[in-house]
């Protein structure tokens, strides 16, 4: 693992105001260590998507900065990959699965033969061997999201950022995808930043959770999740630590929502 | 035939702003300036048949004061109206029948599929032979070019009716004629509107085309005469007038269709 003294991802005093209106993000500072599973939760409408767009370099913050391995980020970084909630919209319907997953490699000028083998490898990792020739709309929602995850992993990113990635699939598929994500994170020693509105999911998956307030979004607290490296859908969720953390975060969110602004 | 034939590219959102009007005007100024430069000091100076922008503009303004232009415009629009009336009646009748009855559809669909993609200009020599350079030539050409859009939209409109509504009417034991008049036709009205809008744009082009190619009265005939007498500034002025006419015509039709759809809450 890399140097632990320096955080992989650091947000310093991040603020965002769209022209002329009230601020959406207000002075958010947090650090994500290398190899950490880090979740960001908050009430709906808290500007989570704005935060995510700022921290991936898709949008410039009004104030403050984001650093990746100590280097300020002003545009999307090659070390970082993104998975969106709307898999039907983030995949290209006119391209086969193989071409979809290979796109980021093409952007980097990886030769064709290597592209093919890396695509096959990463598709196998997400449990979708041999679907290269199919089109996204021929697959189920859960499978499409696996394709999106494969596309994010194919560049072997250091940081994987996920925006509500499991919000549009059914409950069983959701659990499968959660476990897949956790396993991939362990296998690749990847840093994952997950934005979600689902507290249970955040507690189940994360090592640390940042709780945001709304109007504007401020950092309320960062919660450690001491549930160990191995997680299990039934076991982990039965642990008293799980229930405690879940209750604590839900209470925090309810408090910030009822507080007068 | 596509929907895109007469909708406009320029769709200001949230009301027309000064900046947009300014930029649009600047676009026209750039074009006219470039034209003027090209034809006076630029590479196309003294090209035979190409008037300068200023000559064209003054000819365009001159035309505005000529009764000939206005009577030609009037004739053109009159022929368009007659052709459109025929196209709408025939197109809706055939389209609704084809959408409603599988037998009529089987009878007429193949022939419509064959004739529809053939551009109406193909029939011009034939029609000219039979009708001569008369107003009827413009009407016939317009009809042949415009009827298909109405027919297709009517067909689709009837076919796209929510099956649940049809089931409901069947559950109420409505007779077929009542189903047609109270359910099928009203719910297909937005489609008729789209068909009429597309059709009208085609008909305007064809009525003018019949004038240019076959000497049918109207704007087309006027430009044909101007070309034959070798008056480039007048020819270009008439082209600008035809663009103005087309733009106004399409804007009115698009607005009318939008208003109707909004009023009906249709798709």
């Amino acid at each position, binding site marked *: 693992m890399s140097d632990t003294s320096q955080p992989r991802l650091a947000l310093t005093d991040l603020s965002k105001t769209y022209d002329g209106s009230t601020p959406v993000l207000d002075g958010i500072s947090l650090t994500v260590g290398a190899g950490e599973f880090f979740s960001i939760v908050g009430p709906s409408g808290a500007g989570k998507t704005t935060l995510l767009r700022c921290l991936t370099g898709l949008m410039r913050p009004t104030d403050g900065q984001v650093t990746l391995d100590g280097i300020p980020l002003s545009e999307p970084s090659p070390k970082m990959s993104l998975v969106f909630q709307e898999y039907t919209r983030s995949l*290209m319907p006119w391209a086969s699965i193989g071409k979809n997953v290979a796109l980021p490699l093409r952007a980097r000028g990886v030769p064709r033969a290597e592209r093919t083998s890396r695509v096959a490898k990463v598709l196998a990792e997400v449990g979708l061997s041999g679907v290269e020739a199919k089109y996204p709309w021929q697959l189920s929602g859960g499978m499409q999201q696996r394709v999106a995850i494969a596309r994010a992993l194919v560049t072997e990113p250091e940081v994987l950022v996920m925006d509500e990635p499991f919000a549009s699939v059914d409950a069983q598929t959701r659990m499968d995808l959660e476990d897949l994500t956790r396993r991939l994170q362990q296998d690749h020693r990847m840093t994952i930043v997950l934005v979600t509105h689902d507290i249970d999911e955040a507690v189940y998956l994360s090592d640390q959770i940042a709780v945001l307030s709304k109007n504007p979004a401020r950092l309320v607290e960062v919660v450690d999740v001491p549930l160990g490296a191995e997680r299990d859908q039934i076991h982990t969720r039965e642990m008293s630590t799980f229930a405690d953390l879940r209750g604590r975060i839900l209470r925090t969110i309810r408090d910030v929502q009822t507080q007068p602004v | 035939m596509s929907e895109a034939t007469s909708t406009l590219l*320029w769709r200001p959102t949230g009301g027309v702003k000064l900046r947009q009007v300014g930029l649009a005007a600047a676009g026209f100024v750039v074009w006219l300036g470039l034209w003027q430069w090209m034809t006076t000091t630029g590479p196309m100076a003294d090209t035979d048949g190409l008037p300068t922008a200023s000559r064209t503009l003054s000819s365009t303004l001159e035309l505005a004061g000529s009764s000939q232009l206005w009577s030609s415009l009037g004739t053109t629009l009159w022929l368009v109206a007659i052709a459109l009336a025929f196209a709408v009646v025939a197109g809706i009748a055939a389209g609704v029948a084809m959408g409603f009855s599988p037998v009529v559809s089987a009878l007429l669909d193949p022939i419509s599929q064959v004739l529809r993609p053939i551009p109406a200009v193909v029939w011009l*020599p034939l029609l000219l032979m039979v009708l001569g350079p008369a107003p009827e030539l413009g009407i016939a050409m317009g009809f042949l070019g415009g009827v298909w859009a109405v027919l297709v939209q009517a067909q689709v409109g009837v076919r796209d009716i929510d099956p649940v509504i049809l089931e409901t009417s069947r559950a109420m034991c409505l007779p077929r004629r009542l189903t047609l008049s109270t359910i099928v036709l009203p719910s297909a009205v937005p489609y008729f509107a789209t068909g009429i809008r597309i059709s009208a744009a085609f008909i305007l082009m064809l009525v*003018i085309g019949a004038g240019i190619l076959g000497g049918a009265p109207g704007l087309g005939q006027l430009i044909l005469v101007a070309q034959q007498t070798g008056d480039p500034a007048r020819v270009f002025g008439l082209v600008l007038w*035809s663009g103005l006419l087309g733009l106004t015509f399409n804007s009115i039709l698009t607005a009318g269709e939008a208003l109707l759809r909004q009023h009906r809450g249709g798709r």
Partner: protein
Amino acid sequence: MSLRSRVALGLVVPVAIVVSYALWSANAASPYFPPLDVILTRFRELWLFDLVSSDVLPSLKNLGLGLLLAVIAGIPCGAILGRIRWMGEMFGPLLDFWRSVPPIMLIPPLVLILGIEDSAKVTIIAVGSFFPVCVATADGMRQADPTLVDAARAMRLGPLKTMVDIYLRAGSPAILGGIQIGLQAAFVLMVASEMLAAYRGIGYLTMQAQVTFDSVTMWAGTLLLALLGFTANAVFVAIRNRVLSWHTGMRVSRASS
């Protein structure tokens, strides 16, 4: 309804037209409506294949070349107008204006400037079919999903690759629709410019036949033009359906889910 009865019913109208025309033209002896077999004989004499290389192929070459030029110029222009906001706001209305000019209206001025050679015909066809392609491309730029555009940016796809792989692909249904309208305009302009001012070509021969009251040749020419118009569209539709198979498949799968 079974396929057989559909086919049978579909044949009723065409057969009725052909039979009644044959019967009527045989009896009426109208100078305008010669018997069918006379028309078909003339069709064979003229177009299979005596005049093909002198009057059909050059026309089709003008059509193809003109449309090709329109596509080559129209797609980049449309892409610029659709992607760069101030360009779209500045030149969109001008484009709307020019697109509203009936294509045939472009023939008289362009003939005055360019004459009646093949190069003039190609230019007329190219100008007339440029506008629909350009407008459709500009419109197609709005079809790219913002999420997909974000995904492309996150992958650091370069601006050119994003344009080709995302915007143009997402807009391809609209762009192909525009090219189809462009093809129709090109065909009309090919025929009309030959009818108006030319010394060869199918349009010219057919119009000359009409002027000299040679109704048999006129009918034979009309038949060929109709056949060509139909075929050009059919070929285009076949190509478009191939290119857009993903689009159809996606719509079917979304509609059924």
